[in-house]
């Protein structure tokens, strides 16, 4: 208040603007839901099960200080600093899946045989910045 009395022309503080810079980025890197059914891809003639499949995906900005909160290697920090201080043609770290879970699929083969198979890395379960 003293500042304002002494020189009324000083810019009035917009507190909400001021605090905005401390909030976590709204669209920070995180896992997003996505669910499809094999009939949408017209694969339900030969994929018997499951009927629906949720591969999920990662999207969002990587915060400046990724640290091990995202399970990121040290290189991510290096890349971020290069982008910020040395050369902004180097892209910022990207938000990508870090861990997956498998999917069991039951399919019909062209010769009429049927196969049950468990595939690795078919559902994203965790994101990271790299």
């Amino acid at each position, binding site marked *: 208040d003293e500042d304002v009395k002494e020189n009324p022309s000083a810019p009035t503080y917009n507190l909400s603007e001021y605090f905005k810079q401390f909030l976590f980025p709204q669209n920070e890197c995180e896992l997003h839901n996505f669910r499809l059914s094999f009939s949408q891809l017209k694969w339900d003639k030969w994929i018997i099960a499951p009927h629906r499949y949720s591969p999920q995906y990662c999207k969002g900005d990587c915060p400046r200080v990724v640290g091990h909160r995202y399970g990121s290697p*040290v290189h991510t920090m290096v890349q971020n600093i290069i982008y910020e201080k040395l050369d902004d043609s180097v892209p910022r770290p990207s938000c990508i899946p870090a861990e997956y879970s498998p999917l069991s699929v039951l399919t*019909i083969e062209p010769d*009429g045989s049927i*196969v*049950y198979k468990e*595939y690795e890395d078919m559902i994203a379960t965790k994101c990271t910045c790299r």
Partner: protein
Amino acid sequence: EAVSERTPELLLIPEDESPVLPPVLLLPPGVRNGYALLPPLLKVLSDQRPHSWEGESPRLQPDSRALRYMKRLYKMSATKEGIPKANKSHLYNTVWLLTPCAECKHHPKDQIKEDLHSVDLLFNLDRVTALEHLLKSVLLYSFDRSVFSSSAITCTCHVAVKENDPSGQVCPNVLQPITFNLHFEIRRHKWIEIDVTSFLQPLIASNKRSIHIAVNFTCLKDDQHHNSNLGNSFNMALVPPSLLLYLNDTSEQAYRRWHRRKNPVWSRWRNNPLADSLEEMGTENMQYKRASRHRR
């Protein structure tokens, strides 16, 4: 085009090698033309031709009872969302149900007497890759229970594996027959499973591309032991068996529940002095921000 020294086992297919293959396909270690070995789902996913799956060649429809059996196996092995269930008996990550691709008539010379229901079956193993190791193999008989009221029956099943006949005939000579005596209640079973694992193990391990099996299946109801024409109608009700192969696929794209991944990345931050100074540099202005945030 330059594959880094660190990962010599990963192969990039050079552009000019085979235009049919997707432009770049990282193959599992030691597999040159792995595209052909990819399981069906991954083939479609890696196929770059737009909507290639829609123009897919028509598929032979499997026997409805075999399909019902595999759906039941799926429900036992995975959740509704398709996540594999973790239980001790579930060691397989692949199960093939093969339908016989040729039924041969029996040669008169080795006709087995009392032969009410005997067939020679040819199973094609082209889809089973060398990376899929056999855990268990079963001949699967399904029968229509409406043919019989509920009662107990006794069956005798002779199974003989056949060597490939050098003359290329479809049905070569019979070798090493084995007899299974089965006794079961019709009302409680829709399926009869005959374990032929020890039988087929050496053939599959030697990467045979097809298997000939002669099966002679005779059943009689316990209460009418002498009325063989009843056994006859039962045998007529039997459709040719399917061959079930429970396998452990050791390839990269298969889910191996006991295969542990490397330790998580962040544990390597601890003993890296550079990481600390980088974190300092990265957080210098953040420090101030974080401090004021705490105060707030």
